[in-house]
């Protein structure tokens, strides 16, 4: 097996995370980088996002998805970088195996990769997971009623419309108000279809405020919050849905239900990190993000295996994906070039024991999960519910008068918007991050 070509860094996925991870690895002096991408063209989900709004932070302008992807890809064309990078497109990673390190410096991974007409093994000293996420489905939310033609996830419709020139229906109800659903409400409307309503079971929208304004309000599309679906109708093709408001206990008020005729149902009910490869190689997962548990260098509990972008945590802005991935790529390169002394894989108990960042009140999760050494750390997190006048504290876990080390204030927060800020960690000690409104 040691005869196979060995790369310093293998990156799985050539979406925004994978491309930026490659750039980060190259800049951090990785000698050889391979990117494995299942589609034929790099860019990932950006290729189907023909709307604008990408790059406001990273490029100070509003780009479309394909434009943003092109910028990222161009970075890799720089001649100092380009000759280090191999892009395997139309290629699937069949499995990922962490090899047992026989000697220090010889740790690594073997990847079985497959493409039309070929299956082979490649090796890499470190691996960056950048596979993104997938959409939750009608089955996953136990959508009640019939299962006729005309039920799609919003991202599937986005791909069908924007990349395959296929239209799916004339009158849609969108279940869930995640960002893709909001974007697709506008897209369908612009293509002459009608969007009868967007419903969400939560009392607040799942997507960004700007998308609610620009995609629903500007087109007079009703947003029905605190609304659940009672039944999908139609034996052959979707004929309609019955929706009902929820009472204060979260139960459907069936007497107040309404029937909404439609021929298409689109779901935008959440995204799940594509964590199967991470799980298969033994990386521990966070039950809240459903992505791997990582330290401050975005390394998972498997030494040499890194994660970034939506496979780590579902982001709402691609700009932050790129930033996170560049960092993960650079850490992966450093580990490949100068691997730390042989380490063993952490057991669940050990990972728990060294978890120095506790997720405190009003937060759903905080990343990273662990801190290994003092330094500047980017913390990212999501709140559990929308609030105004909100503070996030980074504090010592140990209770005491001067436990708060850093406080960030936000005028408004929402679960749909990831909070991100940096923290200078001077001293190794267990931390807690918690939120409060004031």
């Amino acid at each position: 097996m040691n005869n196979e070509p060995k790369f310093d860094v293998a990156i799985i996925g050539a979406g925004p995370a994978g491309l930026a991870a490659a750039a980060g690895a190259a800049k951090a002096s990785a000698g050889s980088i391979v990117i494995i991408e299942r589609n034929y063209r790099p860019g990932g989900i950006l290729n189907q996002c023909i709307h604008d709004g990408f790059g406001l932070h990273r490029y100070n302008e509003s780009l479309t998805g394909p434009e943003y992807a092109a910028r990222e890809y161009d970075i890799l064309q720089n001649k100092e970088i380009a000759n280090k990078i191999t892009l395997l497109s139309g290629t699937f990673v069949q499995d990922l195996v962490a090899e047992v390190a026989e000697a220090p410096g010889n740790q690594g991974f073997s990847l079985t990769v497959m493409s039309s007409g070929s299956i082979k093994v490649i090796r890499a000293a470190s691996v960056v997971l950048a596979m993104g996420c997938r959409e939750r489905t009608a089955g996953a939310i136990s959508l009640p009623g019939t299962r006729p033609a005309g039920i799609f996830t919003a991202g599937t419709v986005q791909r069908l419309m924007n990349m395959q020139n296929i239209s799916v229906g004339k009158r849609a109800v969108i279940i869930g108000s995640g960002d893709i659903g909001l974007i697709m409400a506008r897209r369908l409307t612009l293509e002459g279809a009608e969007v009868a309503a967007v419903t969400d079971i939560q009392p607040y929208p799942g997507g960004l405020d700007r998308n609610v304004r620009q995609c629903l309000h500007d087109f007079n599309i009703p947003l029905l919050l605190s609304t659940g679906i009672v039944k999908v109708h139609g034996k052959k093709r979707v004929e309609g849905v019955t929706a009902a408001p929820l009472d204060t206990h979260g139960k459907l008020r069936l007497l107040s239900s309404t029937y909404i005729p439609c021929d298409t149902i689109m779901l935008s009910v959440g995204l799940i990190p594509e964590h199967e490869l991470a799980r298969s190689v033994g990386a521990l997962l966070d039950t809240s993000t459903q992505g791997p548990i990582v330290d401050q260098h975005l390394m998972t509990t498997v030494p040499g295996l890194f994660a970034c972008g939506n496979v780590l945590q579902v982001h709402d802005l691609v700009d932050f994906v790129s930033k996170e991935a560049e960092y993960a790529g650079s850490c992966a390169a450093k580990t490949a070039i100068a691997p730390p002394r042989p380490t063993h894989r952490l057991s669940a108990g050990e990972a728990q024991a060294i978890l120095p960042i506790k997720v405190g009140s009003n937060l759903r999760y905080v990343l990273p999960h662990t801190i290994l050494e003092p330094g500047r750390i980017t913390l990212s997190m999501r709140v559990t519910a929308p609030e105004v006048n909100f503070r996030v504290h980074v504090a010592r876990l140990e209770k005491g008068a001067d436990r708060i080390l850093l406080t960030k204030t936000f005028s408004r927060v929402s679960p749909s918007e990831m909070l991100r800020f940096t923290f200078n960690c001077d001293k190794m000690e267990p931390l807690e991050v918690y939120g409060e409104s004031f």
Partner: protein
Amino acid sequence: MKIYDVVIVGAGVIGCAIARILAQTNLSLLIIEKEPDTGFGISSRNSGVVHSGIHYTPGSNRAVYNVQGNRMMEGLCRELKVPFKRSGKITVAFNENQVDTLSALLKQGIENGVPGIKLIDKKEMDVLQPGTRGKAALYTPSTGIISPYELTIALAESAYANGADFKFNHTVESIDIPMPDSAQQREHFVLQTKYAENSGTKPISYAAKILINAAGLGSTDIAKMAGIDDYTIYPCRGEYYVLDKRLRDSLNLLIYPVPGAHSSGLGIHLTNTVDGNILIGPSNEYIIDDEDTSTTIDIMKTLREEGHHLLPALGGSDFIRSFSGIRPKLAPPKEGGFRDFIIESRQDVPGFINLTGIESPGLTASPAIAEQVKSLVGELLPLRARDNIVRGRPVIHNIPFTEQKFSTCSREEKSELITRNRDYGSIVCRCEEVTAAEIKEAAARTLGPVTFAGIKYRTRAMMGRCQGGFCLQRLTEILRESFGIATDEQTLKGPGTELFTGLLRTLQEPGTKESL
């Protein structure tokens, strides 16, 4: 008009099992099916269990054909290359009353000829399935699991390869029975059929000397058309959840509760499938509309709770799909329980072989019922074996059947497959690891029109945790580019279930019609 020796109405597992063995005789044979494919009704919407036969009254059709069918199933599946696993089952008692019921079931099972059956205690239960709750159990090692749709497809392919004709998307509208002594001197049945959704087209007629009614939920309608009004079917729905394959190793064998005395089903249970998913269900609810395969909020909640109870490792994201199937019950709601299968050659309508009320264990019993129907046919027309019978899983439309799924191959086998056909290197469904080569083979071998559901049942594409989110877009391209099916003609499961309304912008689709 060609006069067939035999016309079978219904291409479910019963109709196809009968078609398979009659096709191996000298008789000419036609199968008429209202759906676009085999097994789209009851046959694909059940637990996929090959029952042992402990539950049925000794001497009843259900008992006799279940035990016979169970014995025949393994050999049949081997011949037709259909996955079958004799997993065994325990029926668990939680209190003394239920232990008594188990003793009664044991006695009944022995009388029915169920092999290997025995009562086991808690310790033995723990060996079979660690952590099982309950006091005692009845162990039936002959219980098995099977893919019900793969079996039905394979039976139909075998019939087709031996010369049977199939008409899909044809609904029988009326039947004229033979009246040799009347003015018309009609010697045979004449069936008027309507081609699905095309109300404008004229009815198409087919003629048969023998008519076999295997129409499942529609069997009493077909019988009425022939003047037989003895039976009523009471549709009874069962809802299920499909669980993620992640949990595949958490269940060694089937675990059922002891059924209630008047229950219309066998109780909510966990069933492992040959493909590695676990099913939770089925519920048990009489309904009015025999086509309403809805799932409902209340029952899905019950199933989720029951699932968490039976399988502690179950997480919220492990529920990947829900579905329901409908039992064609002869027992009315107020009676409850079960009535026996009707398998009869009608004396009042000579040549009409009537099968009705074939609910559970119909899948298990199907090979044995087919043998019985063959002997009923033999009483009406002379039978002899056909020359050059095609055995095994046949070549269809010049495409041989590839038994092994790519996803279950070793790396060396995969490599060999890819070298032989580069489409094996191209993944279409990533959750179930289905390749373009397998999709193309399945579509090319389909007897009727190609549908997404048909491809799903043949390949498992779209059956994984992303439920088509990834592969739908690839499948539509393959159907258009390799099979010339225009985007707006691609259906989920036949006419009326078109998936797409067409193209957004006017372009000429390569290889298909020009207009939109």
